[in-house]
């Protein structure tokens, strides 16, 4: 009976997909209705506080880059998370009256960064301190943008260099520029192949999903928060399955593994 309707070896996957879909839809609805879901504060945000604090002490500016991705690609999610972090950084610099320089590679991202920074200064009650001349469009060529950033970091003696978003090969050039300028560097990206370079050259690094979680934590946007929650439940299920599986395997009790190899392969 079952065989005639379902692809039997994917039965568990089918149930799983339905579950994820239903839970996601319900969670988004609840979040939209105003239900608060708990997301812990990411440790990396403390590192940002510290970096901005040091820049304030030294009386030198903070540099922020939202990555080099456009808003129309898969990597847009990283840029959006980066912009949420930018809002946080801008509030800090507004509060402490520290200069904030934001550089952009994508022309389409420029107006959004301007708006984010302006709103943050407004929220801190300091609209007069907002300086639009410090929100820069450097170049839409990847390496020209990187070279431009390196120049700014050296000239302006940037004390804190914060990079949050999607980065590719230019991450090397950035990190080196910030290091030579002697800045505290905090980075975050979900492009795993670039993470090693950020970790080796920065003081703190948000790894992969941490960037999205930080974005959701700061923006409290229902769709983002619900997404993080559903993924968390998924991870919980994965962890519990792994625990049960390894223990039963060690005890040589194959029932559970057999079940999964029959209905989920």
């Amino acid at each position, binding site marked *: 009976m079952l065989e005639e*309707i379902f692809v039997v070896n*994917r039965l568990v996957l089918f149930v799983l997909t339905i579950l994820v879909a239903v839970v*996601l839809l319900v969670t988004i609805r609840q979040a939209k209705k105003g239900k608060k879901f708990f997301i812990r504060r990411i440790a990396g945000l403390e590192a940002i506080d510290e970096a901005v604090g040091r820049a304030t002490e030294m009386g030198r500016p903070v540099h922020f880059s939202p990555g080099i991705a456009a808003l129309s690609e898969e990597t847009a999610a990283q840029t959006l998370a980066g912009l949420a972090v930018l809002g946080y950084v801008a509030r800090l610099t507004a509060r402490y009256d520290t200069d904030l320089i934001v550089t952009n590679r994508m022309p389409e991202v420029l107006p959004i960064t301007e708006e984010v920074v302006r709103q943050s200064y407004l929220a801190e009650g300091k609209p007069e301190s907002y300086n639009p001349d410090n929100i820069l469009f450097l170049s839409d060529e990847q390496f020209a943008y990187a070279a431009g950033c390196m120049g700014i970091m050296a000239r302006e003696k940037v004390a804190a260099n914060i990079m949050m978003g999607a980065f590719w090969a230019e991450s*090397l050039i950035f990190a080196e520029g910030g290091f030579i300028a002697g800045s505290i560097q905090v980075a975050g990206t979900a492009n795993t192949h670039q993470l090693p370079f950020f970790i080796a*050259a920065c003081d703190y690094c948000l790894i*992969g999903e941490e960037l999205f979680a930080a974005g959701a934590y700061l923006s409290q946007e229902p769709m983002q928060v619900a997404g993080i929650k*559903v993924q968390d439940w998924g991870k919980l299920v994965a962890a519990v399955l792994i625990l049960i599986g390894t223990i039963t395997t060690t005890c040589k009790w194959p029932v559970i593994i057999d079940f999964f190899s029959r209905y989920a392969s």
Partner: protein
Amino acid sequence: MRRELPIAITFVSGILFLLDYFVKIPYLSEYVVGHFLDWAIVVAAFALLLGAANLLRIHVQRIVKGKKEWWNSLILLVAMFVMAIVPIIWTQQNAVYEYLFKHFFEHLNGTMFSLLAFYIASAAYRAFRIRTKEATVLLIAAVVVMLGATPIGAAIWKGFPQYSDWLQTVFTTAGMRGIMIGASLGAMVTALRIIFGIDRSYFGGQ
């Protein structure tokens, strides 16, 4: 209509392909899914031309307006047309196309990315520091793997290839698997949001 129709199409095609994977739907699975796949290849081919259309627009403007270094835009367009027209007329096995590909394109593309080797060398010397415990562990693992993967490692110490294999089989695989499970959930959530029309960012703003 302008919003609903595209979203409805996304929903229907998405649900059809999802169900097709799990349930044996008579007629649909055998016939419609196959057709949809064939169609998608053709539409993807049209999408491939979009990038070129964009380039064409930008660079024609730059030439017409006589912008700084407009001749580079001209070179770009000429190169684009030659590389497209020659194989369209005489296939990719044509001698001219092969010549251009082999002697121009391959070197431009290859060299562009080999610049990264120099950047890595420079960053290795100036920026990769054991500032944090994390960076220290990372750099030690990196050194073992670099030595383990090339013959020089084994020539220095027999243990390098073995320990490199150990690091990769146990730790790298475990770490990457954890990341992969998390990223898969992320990809599922994103795709479901798109199919259900909750995330419409791919329509480009509006």
